[in-house]
């Protein structure tokens, strides 16, 4: 399959324009920042460490913001546009106009990724930690990996659903599990263990680490990220091969 950079660039510009014009989708990353700001004012600043359980407000805020942005934002920003194109029958036109699947997916992934990463970086000052206190390369690497995983999950949802309503419905349980991760891990040890194996869990680990002195790479976290990426990519390729884009 021949992949043309000119076409990817054209699709990138188109998608960026459409994404910025789609209020319901573009609001999620804005909400991520908004919610963190609101919660920062609601939750008292506490740094407790009792009986082995730690709760750091800053870490909680950052973890929440990241998961909101990457989980909800990433999945909806990638699943809704595909579902919308199917619903409005614009995807068929594109796919018959000499654009292939690879060009389409790369072209539409980039604007989503850029918006997600922008918000990920903005969340650092918003949750109350200085840029200087953060291991930037690590932070960018982990959040980018998580964002790409989210986008892939969004694509899978977009491919299997026929319209936007269906995309929202299919995405709901996945989003629920992802976003409840930072809350539940505080209350229940077993759930916390399970959640360590999700990529949302890695994000909470990251924010915990950053607020308590510095994040250290662990074999578990990196293999969880790689595992999720491989599984999602495989599933995405399988679903794409089976369903195609234009039906």
């Amino acid at each position, binding site marked *: 399959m021949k992949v043309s950079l000119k*076409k990817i660039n*054209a*699709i990138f510009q*188109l998608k960026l324009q459409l994404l910025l014009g789609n209020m319901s989708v573009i609001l999620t990353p804005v909400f991520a920042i908004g919610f963190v700001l609101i919660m920062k004012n609601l939750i008292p600043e506490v740094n407790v460490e009792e009986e082995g359980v730690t709760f750091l407000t800053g870490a909680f805020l950052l973890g929440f913001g990241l998961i909101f942005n990457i989980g909800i934002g990433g999945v909806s920003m990638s699943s809704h546009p595909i579902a919308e194109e199917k619903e*409005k029958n*614009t995807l068929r*036109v594109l796919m*018959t*106009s000499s654009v292939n699947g690879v060009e389409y997916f790369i072209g539409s992934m980039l604007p989503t990724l850029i918006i997600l990463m922008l918000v990920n970086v903005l969340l650092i000052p918003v949750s109350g930690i200085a840029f200087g206190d953060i291991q930037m390369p690590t932070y960018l690497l982990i959040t980018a990996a998580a964002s790409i995983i989210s986008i892939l999950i969004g694509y899978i949802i977009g491919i299997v659903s026929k319209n936007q309503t269906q995309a929202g419905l299919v995405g709901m349980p996945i989003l629920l599990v992802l976003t409840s991760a930072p809350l539940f891990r505080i209350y229940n040890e077993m759930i916390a263990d399970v959640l360590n194996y999700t990529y949302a869990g890695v994000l909470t680990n990251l924010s915990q680490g950053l607020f308590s002195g510095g994040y250290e790479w662990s074999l578990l976290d990196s293999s969880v990220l790689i595992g999720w990426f491989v599984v999602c990519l495989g599933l995405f390729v399988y679903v794409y091969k089976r369903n195609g884009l234009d039906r």
Partner: protein
Amino acid sequence: MNLVTLENVMKQKNNRTVLKGIDLMIEEYSQIGIKMSREESELFFELLSGKITPSSGHIYRETNSVLADIREDGLYENLTVQGYLNFFKKISDFESSPEGYIAAFSLSDVWQTKIKRLTIDQMRRVSMFRMFLMSPKLLLIESPLTNLTDEGIELYLKGVEHLRNAKITILFTSHYIEELLLLSKEVYRYYPQTGLQKTDLAIEAEPDDEIKDEPKEIKPSIVYKVSSKLEDKTIFFSPDEIDFIESINSVSNIRIGEEYFPSDLTMNELEGKLGKFGFFRCHRSYLINLQRVSELVSYSKNSYTLILKGNPKVKLPLSRSRLEEMKELIGF
């Protein structure tokens, strides 16, 4: 050069035969129109563009540059006409800027307008402009004129002319033969049992003389009814009930409202008998009741269309040669 040749093509979908017995040669620069249903048309387009293969029969394609446009195809409604077309210019290999062709597609008024604010007439032309930018060898379009206003049809036909001048061969399908008559020169009807059948439009001048030779003596027959035999009964129609009579594969069909009734008489015989009741042969295949005509529309220099009272969807062709005759009859 033949762009695509179909030989006895049959295609089943979900174990049901949708297309059968299709023999067709699509020559370069031919202007073919085919009357078929939407489902048949969609499948036919997929076959022609090589997306699916036929269940039986052969399709020989000389070109892979085939683009299909079906009725449902949408546009990016949040973009402006300019933004939309520039995007497709970027992904196509089109050399010059789309701005140079705005006039051909009559879009200068709405060039900066968002697509969602356009009328259906304008959207159809934006679609056509997009297909022009992709510049395929063979273009397949499904019912482009349906639901368009008269001005919309006129401007669309102008765009089609431009596409044809740009050496793009276009094949149209539609459910209405009237639409195809405006868009193409060779018209076929698809019958699920027998395949494609060419409609006898092309030979036009020849039967004129026969009619003139007939002795025009006025019989004092005040009462006349047209009969149609249906199985075991014969139905009689008063001439004033009839909208028009259409010749389909050499059988005269009386059209009343949405229904067709076959008649045993030939078009020439019917014309002779109904002439004095205000019927007029507006086209080789059509005999129209002039009392029912409400409008005469001219979409281009050489084609005229008659629109019936109370049924604006029915558009009958009027040959240029017969326009004068009609002018004399009605006196306008």
